[in-house]
């Protein structure tokens, strides 16, 4: 049997999510026995060629060139999976969407005109059809492995879309929001990280993006009752997944 061809692609990102593939370590060694990683700039010296059974895409779309590239990759891919907050919701860099880009550019680059940057950072799914979105900043290693395995087996990955609270409670961690009024985004955020922040007594800051049917308004009302300002609330949501949280609020008419 021919081994499935996999391609790993990078757009605007920190590389953390594709690094997670290499971080699968033992499982990675097993994986390269099963699949043919045909394109992975960070790990193989090989030009882009041919059709991919599964394409794994990291990073958001922030330049005109990238818009063309992602369209080309879609053409070449039977299935296309996006990994990470950048690719699924524009990433931290999407914060520029809510400010004027010229000012950002000037702040860092003395000659802003030289930089080819769209005024927005957008998720891949805004540009092409995506077969599966794997959330997280970065993606969780086990979840990535489950996703790859599922696609190899021809099924949908069994990954949670419910709240992080579920995972937090399964692990037997006392709720920080209730017991110390820390502004935890857990109730509106997807499970999947392993509740790692709560284990360390830290409130969730939303790496995994909005859960299904996230009732953001209600939680923000509660935060305000606890003494947080409107600005605090916005800054809590405006992080790696600002695009996604904002989209939900917009859809809910806020």
């Amino acid at each position, binding site marked *: 049997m021919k081994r499935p061809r996999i391609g790993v692609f990078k757009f605007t990102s920190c590389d953390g999510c594709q690094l997670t593939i290499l971080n699968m370590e033992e499982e990675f060694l097993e994986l390269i026995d099963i699949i043919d990683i045909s394109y992975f700039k960070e790990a193989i010296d090989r030009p882009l060629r041919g059709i991919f059974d599964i394409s794994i895409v990291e990073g958001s779309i922030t330049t005109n060139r990238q818009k063309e590239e992602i369209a080309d990759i879609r053409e070449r891919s039977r299935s296309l999976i996006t990994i990470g907050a950048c690719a699924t919701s524009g990433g931290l860099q999407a914060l520029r969407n809510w400010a004027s880009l010229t000012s950002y550019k000037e702040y860092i680059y003395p000659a802003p005109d030289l930089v080819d940057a769209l005024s927005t950072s957008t998720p891949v799914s805004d540009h092409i059809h995506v077969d599966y979105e794997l959330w997280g900043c970065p993606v969780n290693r086990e979840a990535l492995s*489950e996703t790859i395995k599922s696609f190899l087996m021809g099924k949908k990955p069994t990954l949670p879309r419910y709240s992080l609270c*579920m995972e937090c409670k399964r692990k037997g961690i006392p709720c920080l929001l209730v*017991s110390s009024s820390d502004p935890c985004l*857990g*109730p509106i955020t997807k499970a999947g990280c392993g509740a790692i922040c709560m284990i360390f007594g830290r409130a969730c800051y939303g790496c995994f993006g909005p859960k299904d049917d996230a*009732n953001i*308004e209600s*939680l923000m009302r509660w935060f305000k009752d606890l003494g947080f300002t409107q600005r605090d609330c916005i800054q809590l949501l405006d992080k790696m997944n600002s695009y996604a949280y904002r989209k939900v609020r917009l859809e809910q008419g806020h």
Partner: protein
Amino acid sequence: MNYKILKIRKHDLNLFIQNLKNSYRLIGPAIENEVIMLREIGPDDLPSGFRDSQSPGHYRLVDKRDDRIFTFSNGPDSFKRFIFPPVNVVFEFRKTKRGLIIKTPHEDRVPLSIFGVRACDIEAMKILNRVFSNNEKKAFIVGLNCIYPGENCFCASLGSGPEIRDGCDMVITELEKHLLIESGEEGLRFLQGIFHEEASKEDLEEKKSIIEQCRNMIKKSITTGDLAARIYRNSEHPLWLRIAERCLACGNCTQVCPTCFCNSSFDLVDMPSLKRSSEGVSGKRIRIWDSCFSMNFARVHGGNFRPSRRARYRQWLSHKFGYWIDQFGIIGCVGCGRCITWCPVGIDITEELGVIR
């Protein structure tokens, strides 16, 4: 059951706990991250003298330096975690030429004891056993009569507390000077080496009055009469929409509830087994706690039966207070108040139920 009613001195509680610990994996209340959780405990781990202040969506633990030991009430954890664990391997499988080999995991055979189970949780345990048709005794239960209720408790309305009536192996009541111990045969051996004497009539009177006092301090209540009918009749009540505006569908209430039992199963596959095509596939079937608040809980191929939060909240409350009676002949709520305290946005079911007439 052949009960003996004895009393021991308070400072001997340590010995008693040590005795239990010698025979069991002992689970009991201990402070973890400023909250009372159930953990493996030793003689010095009890949060003696601590009180919790609870209100909807709010919990704080305060060291009252009270002389009494059992001043605290329930935290978010319940026995449920230990008897029906949150993540469970149903079986391991491996496909071979000769067919599918299925191995069920060995159960953890270290005998378990849970210390300090309150009346409400003992009722909850009975309910869960009924749900799962479980006849197996999974732990040695040391019950504890409450001297203070939690501020969100309403067990009295449901007749599940504050006094323990049956369903456990031993019951402790903290009196002014002593610990009153009611025990069946099996428990007596844990009093070995501990000075104990027969309880007097006065002791029993004291117990009664302490529990009465506790009962009188309970602040919350619900009306249970014709509750099921009220719920059935009000499936389109505007209340559901109002709650849905607040409810986050986060599922906390169902996870801390000692009787909520919804769960989901799925397969996890081992990577190397994929190499040999589907022939050699191996992995595990896992069952985890789930919740009727999960969006996908009632999804089927063609659609979702409960896409709205309104419907999912209604499902939860209707199940707990209505459907449960039809299904298991008993209300699914024991009045422990956990769902009120641990709801991140403080939705109070006693208040909401009051609206349904």
